[in-house]
């Protein structure tokens, strides 16, 4: 067997990455397609509907969503710092950076929940809203709900990795793989933010 692989050369490790990392990349690509389908569906009804509601006022919705974007982007930076520390073998430092990432994610979840409650208070539910365009609530809650589920799963995943890695249980590659997932969640928000919020903002 050894002869075959060494004799063949390039065939043994065509991607030269850890199998966990390749697995996470494949998951990320398939999940990206799920989100693209939802975003295209949302954009379709948004573009073709003449009475699309524009409920997002500068304060609080747009400012809130911009702060949420800031939270996610910053948590991505703390995550790359965690990966970098993990690769240098600094377990405690890496765990602290992951905790900072989780704090960014939790801030996002809190702000987003506040936004949801604000809309629900105005009478927006997945099936009806005061503006008479039920598709608004349906697409809004599906899209942001699936994304928020990803963020919450990400925070749980990161907490497992942070405590496990801090106590010497995981390898640095596990931190890097969890980072891939976290950056992907950040990336999806980069499309939800302009499509859902900025395209439906209430002009002053």
């Amino acid at each position, binding site marked *: 067997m050894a002869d075959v692989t060494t004799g063949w050369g390039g065939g043994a490790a065509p*991607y030269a990455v850890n199998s966990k990392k390749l697995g996470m990349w494949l998951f990320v690509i398939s999940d990206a397609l799920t989100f693209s389908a939802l975003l295209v569906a949302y954009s379709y009804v948004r573009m073709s509907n003449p009475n699309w509601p524009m409920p997002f006022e500068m304060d609080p919705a747009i400012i809130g969503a911009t702060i949420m974007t800031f939270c996610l982007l910053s948590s991505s930076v703390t995550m790359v710092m965690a990966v970098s520390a993990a690769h240098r073998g600094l377990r405690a430092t890496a765990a602290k950076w992951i905790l900072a990432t989780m704090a960014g994610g939790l801030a996002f979840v809190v702000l987003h929940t506040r936004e949801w409650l604000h809309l629900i208070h105005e009478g927006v539910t997945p099936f009806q809203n005061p503006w008479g365009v039920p598709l608004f609530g349906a697409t809004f809650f599906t899209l942001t709900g699936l994304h928020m589920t990803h963020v919450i799963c990400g925070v749980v995943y990161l907490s497992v990795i942070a405590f496990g890695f801090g106590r010497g249980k995981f390898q640095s590659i596990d931190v890097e793989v969890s980072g891939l997932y976290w950056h992907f969640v950040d990336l999806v928000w980069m499309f939800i933010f302009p499509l859902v919020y900025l395209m439906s903002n209430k002009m002053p």
Partner: protein
Amino acid sequence: MSENAEHHGSRLYLYVWFWLLALTGVEVFLAYEHLPLKTMLVLLMSLSMVKAALIIAYFMHLRFEKRSLTLTLMPPLVICIILLLLFFFPDSLRLLELRPS
């Protein structure tokens, strides 16, 4: 992770972070310009694709992986998204044009 990427590490990541925030700022600014719906959609999506590319290349580290990984992962994703857009967007834009004004 190559030694080279490791060294430039923090400063490179902060630089990317700065650009991502700046592009977000431009998007929020554009949202308050009175632009036609189609122009707005194209501008915002172009900026978002630049942001996505920055995140994938630097934060997700794909730029520093072996090229074969990028070539396996990205073309199917891009082709599927283009197919989605080809199926739905001409229709949605036609509905936009047919709106009674």
